[in-house]
């Protein structure tokens, strides 16, 4: 009696990933899934049995014979016995299959036809038409479901096909919403724009390009709706809604239920047949989901980074011997992720970094070079799938790798802090800015709530927020991106950390705001004497504020040195290539690095 599949897909709308080149097609994947094959075979067997019902059974489904009254299993002519009216159970089962399949076809078919059609229209055309379709489906959803099917008995006259037709409309809102969301997601994609520009009609675009994009979730929903329609039809027949001349699992279960104590097998047969049919549909739906949308998401553990068992973790040299004058030392760090085949693939491969007190080190490299992974490892916030395979991370002389989440928590905020890239997504939308900052201060120090609030207000003023009182009370969506980044910087420096990890702190901001944020970071750094590890791909930012640079490529540090040295005499070809990329911009490099007038928005 559930509308599970439809709900599932709705609450967690995971866009179906487009199969990239070289990836197996979803249908091939489906046919390699044993669960899909078994359930498909079961369903095909049901269809064949249903079609051959009159051939296999020697009696009609309603043919009652007095001699056969409650005939037991294995009676001649009644292989599965007969019921209390002397009707052949095998024949009734086979004909019930047809009733169920027709119910599923009508219910799911109507739901698909109505839901997809209006979903395409509502999603593709403007908001005015959409508000119309929204109303219609809100109305459908207001009908009291199963109750309506019972209440309308005087008009359906118990014809299960008519009932399923109405039920199809009741199922349609789920399909409508899935389709509408998918269409809204893809209708502004470039390929749809291209189709529009090249003069294709709306009908063609809808029918060809958009329908292709939405088919995955809709197919999954269809499998579940098919099962739901069958379950509902059985339930209604069990209640007695329907013509008793139509053989159906529900009616057979109901009769069996009455004779449960004397003739339990009369209950068991239809229950088994119905149970296997609906289970096969649910399992097929799950297989379809896995094949079309990728495997379901795994739990997101909150825990310290996993260290590979037997990995050489910790300082290679005698405890902190060469750490003199460094607050953060990363040594030969390697981080790996499991591939689909189960092997580990290293994304960071032997990275070593040293960060002196008050120093700013730029960690530079293109996307995927492993710089953010290195930064997350120092904070102990790697994703749960990541595995540290070797190396050492020492914060103020203390080994960080292998510490528990609880132990790491005592370091975070006080010793090491973090400024993220994307300001908006890094604030919790449901809590005020002030509440989030106060909680951070109280988690990393021993101050009272009032003191924490005072400190947060002072910080907000310090980071240049014009009306701190108001920002304190604001929710994240009520402040601008630049303000949000200031708030995050305030949150990071609240407990005067020794090391600040800033991951592309200006990338997501307007060009005009970027310079202000960099100035703020620089000022705070000298004020608090923090060391800063600045992860970036922007050489303009590096030239602006970094003392030294480490260049990363494919998980390794290929070159380290003073900023001036690297800008004037890059040694590694990759560094030269990165620098060359910005110099294409007609910018002048005459006065050395400090004056490199690279537009801040330029990506290296």
């Amino acid at each position, binding site marked *: 009696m559930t509308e599970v599949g439809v709900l599932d897909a709705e609450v*967690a709308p995971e866009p179906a990933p487009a199969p990239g080149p070289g990836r197996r097609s979803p249908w091939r994947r489906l046919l390699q899934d044993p669960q899909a094959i078994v359930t498909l075979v079961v369903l095909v067997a049901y269809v064949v049995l249903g079609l051959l019902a009159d051939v296999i059974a020697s009696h009609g489904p309603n043919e009652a014979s007095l001699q056969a009254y409650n005939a037991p299993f294995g009676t001649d002519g009644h292989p599965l016995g007969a019921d209390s009216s002397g009707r052949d159970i095998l024949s009734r089962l086979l004909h019930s299959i047809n009733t169920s399949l027709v119910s599923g076809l009508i219910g799911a078919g109507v739901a698909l036809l109505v839901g997809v059609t209006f979903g395409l229209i509502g999603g593709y055309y403007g908001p005015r038409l959409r508000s119309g379709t929204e109303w219609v489906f809100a109305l459908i959803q207001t009908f009291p479901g199963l109750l309506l099917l019972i209440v309308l008995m005087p008009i359906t006259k118990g014809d299960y096909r008519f009932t399923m037709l109405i039920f199809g409309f009741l199922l349609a809102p789920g399909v409508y919403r899935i389709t509408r969301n998918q269409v809204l997601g893809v209708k502004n994609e470039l390929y749809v724009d291209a189709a529009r520009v090249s003069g294709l009609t709306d009908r063609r675009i809808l029918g060809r390009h958009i329908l292709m994009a939405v088919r995955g979730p809709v197919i999954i929903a269809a499998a579940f709706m098919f099962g739901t329609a069958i379950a509902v039809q059985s339930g209604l027949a069990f209640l007695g809604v329907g013509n008793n001349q139509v053989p159906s699992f529900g009616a057979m279960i109901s009769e069996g239920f009455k004779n449960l104590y004397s003739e339990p097998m009369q209950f068991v047969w239809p229950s088994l047949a119905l149970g296997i049919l609906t289970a096969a549909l649910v399992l097929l739906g799950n297989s379809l989901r896995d094949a079309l949308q990728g495997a379901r998401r795994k739990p997101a553990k*909150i825990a310290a980074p996993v260290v590979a068992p037997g990995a050489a973790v910790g300082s290679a040299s005698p405890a902190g011997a060469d750490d003199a004058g460094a607050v953060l030392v990363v040594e030969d760090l390697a981080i790996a992720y499991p591939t689909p085949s189960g092997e580990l693939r290293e994304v960071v491969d032997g990275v070593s970094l040293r960060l002196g007190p008050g120093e700013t080190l730029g960690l530079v490299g293109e996307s995927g070079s492993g710089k953010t992974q290195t930064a997350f490892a120092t904070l102990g916030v790697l994703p749960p799938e990541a595995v540290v395979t070797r190396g050492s991370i020492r914060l103020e002389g203390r080994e960080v790798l292998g510490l528990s989440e609880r132990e790491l*928590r005592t370091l975070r905020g006080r010793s090491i802090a973090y400024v993220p890239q994307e300001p908006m997504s890094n604030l919790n939308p449901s809590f005020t800015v002030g509440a989030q900052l106060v909680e951070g201060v109280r988690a990393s120090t021993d101050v009272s709530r009032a003191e924490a609030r005072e400190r947060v207000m002072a910080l907000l003023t310090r980071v240049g927020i014009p009306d701190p009182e108001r920002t304190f009370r604001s929710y994240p969506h009520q402040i601008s991106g630049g303000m949000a980044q200031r708030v995050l910087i305030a949150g990071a420096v609240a407990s005067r950390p020794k090391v600040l990890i800033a991951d592309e702190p200006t990338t997501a901001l307007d060009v005009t705001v970027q310079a202000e944020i960099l100035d703020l970071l620089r000022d705070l750094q000298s004020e608090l004497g923090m060391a800063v590890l600045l992860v970036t791909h922007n050489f303009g930012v590096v030239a602006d504020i970094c003392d030294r640079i480490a260049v990363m490529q494919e998980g390794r540090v290929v070159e380290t040195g003073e900023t001036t040295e690297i800008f004037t005499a890059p040694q590694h070809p990759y560094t030269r290539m990165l620098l060359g990329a910005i110099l294409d911009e007609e910018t002048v490099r005459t006065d050395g690095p400090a004056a490199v007038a690279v537009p801040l928005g330029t990506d290296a």
Partner: protein
Amino acid sequence: MTLYVLRRLAIGLVLAVLVTFITYLLLSPSFDDIVVSKLGPTGATPEAVAAVKTDLGLDRPIVVQYLDWLGGVLHGDFGISYFTSQPVGDAVASRLAVTLSIVLVALAISVVVSVTLGVLAAYRGGAVDRIVQSVSLIGHLVPSLLIAIAFVYIFAVKLGWLPATGYTPLSEDPVGWLKSITIPVIALVIGGIANLSAQIRGAMIDELHKDYVRTLRTRGIGTRSIVLKHVLRNAAGPALTVLSLEFLTMLGGALIIESVFALPGYGQFAFTSSLQGDIPVIMGITLFGTLLVVGVNLLTDLVNGWLNPKARVL
């Protein structure tokens, strides 16, 4: 805020009126048959049918009949049953009480168990996660009808611990009431947990992958606060939507459960009245059912608005 509530309430009432009107419209072609069956095969002469139709007001235009009914409803008069002469309002309310007492208890248990399991599964993984996944799969694989019958067979017939059928009102005998609803509630709870725990797990996982979770961790904030305060608060919105749908699904499931356990509930009442063609009762049942849907949706929207500060600006 008040304006928003009033607007939502108005939309809900408009929807309820439309739903009952469409239902009346759908029922209207069968009015003749109903009158014939009321009179019985021998008494149904054309004159008698016409007389009864006039008597019941069924000879007027459909819209007039509907507005007449609606006018009565607005004055608290839901009509009188064609067959029992009982006021529809009282009859429906007493049946609804039975159904709601089962559904609400089942829903409350499902929520407590599902939130606990779903949250643990999402951020701990491991054994809890496997349990949630298996419970959810089994709950979906076995039709609730079969679960209910299996429970009757095991606990009532074989073990004799609980009554197999029947309902004892709470006001009469609290212990008897508890016993009479136990198996029906368990039968509903299994489906409820199967649905809700998987959905809450999914909503929590989606939320745990958000950037702000990492940032909160880097400030030294404890896992308990992150999971139970920050993440759960954001996951509650989607979970609540699922919960409201689950409530309606359970109401549907209760119709079947009532039949298995011979409970004098809403579904049974709807069934017998529809068989008889008792139009005032059918309309009353539809109205109350619709108002339940409207009420649950309104409540969901309001709580969602309260949870989500973006929706709160009004």
